[in-house]
């Protein structure tokens, strides 16, 4: 069974068809790449999957459950973790605090008990803290635990953001341009980290990525979007050399189409 099964999604904004009949699948433990030029609808697709947009047509199934109608936070609680193009973190808080915040759905005490400082909350806070530190260790950010997010370099923030999403304990990790702001070496390291995380945490990954070498290196399967339509899909090597993909990226045929 597919972890994520996006079936024939369409969405319109005003007169603009942002996505037309797009279907995407992610099997367990797969790393799936989503490529395509700017404005192709990749982030829109993410927003449909995670519940920020309601598609006009089509269904989203997650772990076998139809989640098309349920709100964002419930999908997150089910195990959908995502990052944002513009880093999504509480910038005034420290790295560690962010990772604790991200464990929201794992906290067992009620909001009220926390405010009153009821008995078990103190102990549980310690556990949350420990788990956060473990994740920071795992992604190699432990030395930054007590730094404020606001002062960190952009590339580091992106890594922290991914760590925060890992703290939500996701079944699927959806990354929106994880390597933007990173140099080639950092991107390369990031690929290694991603492969390791999949193995250690048993993650399924769906990622939007512009850096094609990284996509080729880590993805098991790739979808290419263009103008809201699925241009092609397949093994990374096949997609990369697919003539229409080459032209979509180089933008030559695009002009001839009309």
């Amino acid at each position, binding site marked *: 069974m597919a972890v994520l099964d996006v079936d024939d999604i369409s969405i319109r904004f005003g007169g603009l068809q942002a996505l037309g009949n797009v279907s995407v699948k992610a099997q367990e433990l797969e790393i799936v790449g989503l490529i395509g030029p700017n404005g192709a609808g990749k982030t829109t697709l993410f927003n449909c999957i*995670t*519940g*920020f947009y309601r598609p006009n047509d089509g269904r989203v199934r997650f772990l076998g459950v139809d989640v098309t109608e349920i*709100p*964002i*936070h*419930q999908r*997150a*609680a089910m195990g*959908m*973790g*995502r990052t*944002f193009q513009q880093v*999504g*973190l*509480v*910038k*005034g*808080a420290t790295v560690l*605090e962010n990772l*604790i*915040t*991200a464990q*929201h*759905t794992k*906290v067992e*005490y009620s*909001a*009220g008990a*926390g*405010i*009153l*400082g009821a008995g078990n*909350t103190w102990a549980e*806070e310690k556990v949350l803290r420990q788990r956060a530190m473990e994740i920071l260790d795992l992604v190699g950010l432990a030395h930054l635990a*007590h*730094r*404020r997010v*606001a*002062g*960190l370099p952009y590339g580091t923030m992106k890594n922290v953001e991914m760590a*925060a*999403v890992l703290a*939500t304990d996701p079944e699927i990790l959806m990354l929106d341009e994880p390597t933007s702001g990173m140099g080639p070496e950092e991107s390369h390291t990031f690929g290694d980290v991603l492969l390791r995380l999949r193995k250690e945490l048993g993650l399924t990954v769906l990622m939007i990525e512009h850096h094609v070498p990284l996509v080729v290196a880590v993805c098991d399967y790739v979808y290419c979007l263009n103008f809201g339509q699925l241009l092609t899909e397949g093994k990374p090597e096949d997609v990369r050399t697919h003539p229409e993909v080459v032209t979509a990226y180089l933008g030559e045929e695009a002009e001839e189409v009309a």
Partner: protein
Amino acid sequence: MAVADAVLDHPDSAERAKSVVRWIPRLAAWGVLAAFLLVFPLSLETFHAQRWSLGVVFAIAALSLNVLIGYAGQISLGHQGFLGVGAFVSAYVVTVHQQTFWVGLLAGALSGAVASLLMGVVALRVRGLYLALVTLAYGRMAQETLFNLGIFGKGSGVEAPRPALLLGDHAFYYFSLVVLAGVLFFNWRFVRSKAGRAVSAVRENEQVAASYGIPVSRYKLIAFVVSGAFVGLAGTLYAFLNGRVDSQGINFEMALFLVLITVVGGLRSPAGILVFTALFEVLPTYVGDYFGIRWSFWLLALGPALLIITLVFYPGGVGQQIKPITSWMTGGPFRVHHGEQFVQEGVSGRP
């Protein structure tokens, strides 16, 4: 076993001794502070008990406003309206329904929470500038209508007799400090637990918060409830401090005064808020005594100027300026941690 654990935790007893030594000057500083707040008032010939207690009341109200503006990023320019609800309801419960002061205190906190919750429901739909306007209009409506209702004495106000235990000026002042300590405790647990973190995430970015599984609307409402309960307590103290409550004085000037001490004190900085409230509420009494009433009007004009200067140049407020001291007092070094610069978000999290 327990001993072994303790040794494992502190393998080096010299290290441990050092940490005890480290705390000696800090404990001394805490002692001086406690003496100033608790013992010094006893030695004053004319102790402005009203004024000192009022300072504590406003500190609690400012901590309440800090929950809304600082943590939740929701503006309220009608906070005096919630303070008033707490004041009137607690006085009403005690005077008309013959309940004890303690029941009144509980009723004050609850009614403040409920009134604030209702505003929270409005805030789910109305945002930013428009919410500011709604809260402002609410404050005015509360002053003109709500607090002049028949049950609240039709404009003549409600008696708020203190219980025997709190009749003395000093007694009431100490009791106010106890309530303040309670509010500080809850504020601390709020910030360091699930609810406070969720509320901060919602302030910073609702989409990110939702993607962490946080139900955005629910936590906005929780922030309003917590804030309302705090200010309801402040309102109760306000009523019983004066012995009666009427709608005079619970006006827009009070709302703006609360915004002033909260923002200049420092959003998300309870210590800064307490220090600035103490300075700004208690000092003018003495200035007025020594230099005459006109001086206190000048001081009144100084407040807004301070507010603007803070907004423009020191968005972290007093809290940011005294950071080295608060850091040291709580066991850290006498400096600002690296990367702790205040993130400029202004009064509200979003534009």
